[in-house]
């Protein structure tokens, strides 16, 4: 075996040793990193059933789902009109009102500001509802409209709509 091929052999052995070592290290680190992700019990999609029969028009309630507040608002005729009238193509996060509700008068939203995670004001009648009559986040001044869409301020997205369904006329199942 000449010197050159011996060098190549050395290079190959060195490279494969390093590669296997790196792979092994990565495989060893993986379970540690993975353990920091949400555990199975956290992941288990909690569902919440909510009785909405007592909510009057124009009123909102807040329920907790997966540790987050969920807003349920029974919208007034004016609020629905307001939400529908807007030319949605001009919005920061363009979405039609019709795509955000299952029944026009019921608006269900995850009540977490998409900017930095505060809970926007607007659930109580006395709250500041912002310039668009929906919700107003006091932390960094984001304004949401009567469809929960971002209209002004630093938040990049509309308030998300959680998965939900109407079990009957008076009960919503979230999750």
């Amino acid at each position, binding site marked *: 075996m000449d010197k050159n091929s011996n060098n190549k052999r050395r290079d190959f052995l060195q490279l494969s040793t390093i590669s296997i070592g790196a792979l092994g290290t990565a495989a060893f680190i993986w379970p540690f*990193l993975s353990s*920091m*992700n*949400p*555990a199975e019990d*956290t992941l288990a999609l909690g569902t919440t059933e909510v009785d909405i029969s007592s909510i009057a028009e124009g009123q909102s309630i*807040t329920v*907790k789902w*997966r*540790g*987050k*507040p969920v807003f349920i608002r029974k919208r007034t005729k004016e609020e629905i009109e307001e939400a529908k009238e807007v030319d949605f193509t001009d919005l920061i996060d363009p979405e039609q009102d019709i795509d955000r509700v299952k029944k026009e008068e019921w608006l269900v939203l995850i009540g*977490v500001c998409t*900017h*930095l*995670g*505060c*809970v*926007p004001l607007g659930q109580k009648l006395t709250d500041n509802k912002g310039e668009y009559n929906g919700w107003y*986040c*006091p*932390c*960094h*001044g984001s304004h949401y409209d009567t469809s929960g869409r971002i209209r002004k*301020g*630093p*938040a*990049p997205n509309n308030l998300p709509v959680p998965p939900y369904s109407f079990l009957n006329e008076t009960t919503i199942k979230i999750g």
Partner: protein
Amino acid sequence: MRGNSEHRKYKNSFLNWIEFRLPIISYFEKEYGDYPMPKNCNYFWSFGALATITLVVMIVSGIFLAMNYTPHTDMAFDSVERIMRDVNFGWLLRYIHSNGAAFFFIVVYIHILRGMYYGSYKYPRELNWILGVFIYLLMMATAFMGYVLPWGQMSYWGATVITNLFSAIPFIGEGLKTWLLGDYTVGNATLNRFFALHYVFPFVILGIVGLHVAAVHVHGSNNPAGIDIKSKNDTVRFFPYMVMKDALAFCVFGVIISAVIFFGPNLMAEVDNYIPADPLVTPAHIVPNWYLAPFYAILRAIPDKLGGVLLMFGSIAILFVLPWLDRSKVRSCNFRPIYKWFVMLFFVNFFILGYVGMLPAEGLYLLIARIGLVYYFGFFLIITPFIHKIETPKSLPLGISDVYLGGGKEIPTPNVQKEII
């Protein structure tokens, strides 16, 4: 033959026994006894020692607090209240720890500003500066996680806002945030891991502090004149001169911090944090701790989520490259007639940013934050790299001993220098 190599350096035979097997005694003698300090160093040079002492106090008080603290969302708040009311001297431990954190930052800020003013970050101490910025970063992370532990309203919502910063990163942001929290919102998983990391980070800091000190001892400390040590006459021994000086500085510091701990322990606390965390109600104003507020002001000055986050992290990251941004050969601002004022303005600006960072981001405050933000980056990216082109530094003294002859105003002849020595 064994007796020959085990020579008797010390009177105490036990010390000799140790020294032969682990030369730690001679190491300490060299680094903390004989170590030559420039004799013109002022009291700003005591803040490194003060920071080290504060770190130790924080670790000790933290360990004793941990003995009575429960990292669970249902019990954390109550366990802290129990420390305050029922645990013997628990109130003292907690007030030492919470005010100690604030004073740790005060001391470290003065230490950093000293380094900036006297150019301590320049050749050959760049690595020293970088290690220092790492310590500062770890301090911020540790302080942030520690603030979450009492599980009050500010703890919860501060954690929510700061961890949401990561969700601004495109594509991986949401996943990264969930990974950091261990849940979809700040919850028990988050509190547990923050406690674990809050406990371990200070020991990492302690390790880097060791490297930081070892690194500065390689080329020796900088001094107010920013010139190199040329002879033994430029220096004094660390012991007893610097030890005594630092001890006096610590006494003054101790009086001030004790006054706050005993007479105004909640001066720097947010009252909202005495309300238990409620995931359904956000406080009207989420106020960060004052020592992180300048960066919070930068975050809020930008009306775009990703942009704000990038600039906030950028404002810290830019500190790492300061040694290469500053192109001037002169270290000390005492001899830089123009840059000196920009550096001082930088300090004032940082303070103002912190002030508006604690106020609502609207109207005049927002405008001030934006001006402050422009100056912060302008200072690093325009003034620091280019000022040397228009600035004529004052003439440097030939040696440290010359400082006392009015060095920097006129150059004394070397002969005069010899006479005074």
